[in-house]
């Protein structure tokens, strides 16, 4: 397949670097200022230029969107509300009957109905495995089981928040201390608010709920419909109290066709959902197959890129 990659953050970069190993060519790579194009594009050279000058290329975005690719990989930063520029990039590709693979959560969480309408009109397909749980095949597993037979999906879907909770409980350290440590380790971003206030986890919950709701003919949800509480106000002493009773606290996403709830919850310390550090877990409850647990790395460039490239591999040839 010929890929156009929008976004040169950790994920976009890793997709570009790994695409060759999966048998795909990258014909264009764009950051927020401009695009580099080639047939195929010399990835090493483009990324070196980005490294040196801060800009990957000078060509206008429109030119890349109009180029001859099979799949548009949308990996620009997740934005809320209108989900731009991710939504328009995806819509532009679909309107040209190209496939779209999203790593960007915005369009599927905030504008699922608009996106589905664009897919209806298109010969191209849409996949978004990378938006939920990084390397964990959460969306695909739900699809394989049949979303109409999946009752509920719960899990730990934010590695930063989980790292903070794990360290606070294990070491008795304060929230600010652990968060600073997470930033030093690169586990938390410079502005970690979306991770610790529950927004990032909620977006993933909304995406799953949208898949479950679509299968039941119900309208799509957006972030505003989710009930969200973060972990940013939890004192270490609260975690210690729970620990004395063999329990701990995890930021749990609870998504079903009836809605999405995200918040700190008490779970057994040795229970399935009490994954530690930056690990994520997705627990799928089904009518016929019982409960499935999938755990693994929920973030990271190569991990998320592996989900993007697995999506690309599932697309039909154009």
């Amino acid at each position, binding site marked *: 397949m010929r890929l156009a990659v929008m976004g040169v953050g950790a994920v976009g970069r890793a997709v570009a670097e790994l695409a060759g190993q999966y048998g795909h060519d990258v014909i264009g790579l764009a950051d927020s200022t401009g695009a580099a194009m080639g047939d195929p594009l010399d990835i090493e050279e483009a990324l070196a230029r980005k490294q040196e000058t801060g800009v990957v290329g000078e060509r206008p975005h429109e030119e890349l969107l109009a180029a001859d690719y099979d799949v548009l990989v949308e990996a620009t930063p997740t934005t809320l509300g209108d989900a731009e520029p991710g939504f328009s990039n995806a819509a532009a590709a679909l309107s040209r009957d190209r496939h779209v693979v999203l790593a960007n959560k915005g369009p599927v969480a905030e504008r699922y109905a608009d996106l589905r309408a664009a897919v209806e009109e298109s010969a191209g397909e849409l996949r978004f495995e990378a938006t939920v749980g990084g390397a964990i095949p959460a969306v695909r597993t739900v699809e394989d089981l049949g979303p109409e037979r999946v009752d509920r999906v719960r899990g730990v879907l934010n590695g930063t928040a989980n790292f903070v909770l794990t360290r606070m409980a294990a070491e008795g350290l304060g929230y600010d201390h652990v968060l600073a440590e997470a930033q030093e380790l690169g586990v938390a971003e410079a502005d970690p608010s979306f991770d610790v206030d529950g927004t990032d986890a909620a977006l993933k919950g909304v995406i799953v709920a949208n898949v479950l709701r679509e299968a039941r003919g119900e309208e799509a949800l957006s972030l505003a419909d989710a009930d969200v509480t973060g972990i940013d106000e939890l004192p270490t002493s609260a975690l210690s109290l729970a620990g004395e009773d063999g329990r701990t606290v995890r930021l749990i996403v609870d998504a079903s066709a009836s809605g999405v709830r995200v918040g700190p919850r008490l779970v*057994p310390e040795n229970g399935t959902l009490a994954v530690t550090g930056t690990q994520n877990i997705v627990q799928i409850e089904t009518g016929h197959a019982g409960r499935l647990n999938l755990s693994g790395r929920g973030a990271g460039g190569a991990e998320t890129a592996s989900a993007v490239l697995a999506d690309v591999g599932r697309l039909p040839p154009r």
Partner: protein
Amino acid sequence: MSRPDGVTTHTLRLELVDEPGELAAALDPIAENGGNLLSVFHERGSRTPGGRIPVEVAVDCPAGKFEDVVDGLREQGVTVVAADEEYYGEAFRVLLTGHLVDTDLSGTLREIENESTVSVEELSLTAPDGVEAISSAYLRLGARSGERGAALDRVREIAERKDLIVVEPLEVGE
């Protein structure tokens, strides 16, 4: 199961540490408090996630003595997971955080208990930065079968009014 002589049969679910003599030590308080041990069931090889051994015990007790048996077991350090499922089986934990003391903790507990079927069975409070700062309370609440959801709604409502954070148990209210 109540009989004319006032003796009732109860079931207890205990979790024991895997050490010699644990079972005998756990059963002593039953006789000491007037209970009559009917049966002990332990599924060989079965372990809790924490490595403890789950044991189910049936006991005959004169009217009103069952609470003493349960208390006696707890004093002995035995973990009573459930005593007569119907009543204790629905015990659940809730963590509250915020200005608990400033917002009248005993008032909060009273309000929770006002919901006639809910009882505060255990409370641990920690206020490492003094009672005027943020403190946390860990509550073990008892509610009758099928009423945990309502009990939790009550806690949520009080917490919202008093600007407290509730960390709910995952298994409740589904």
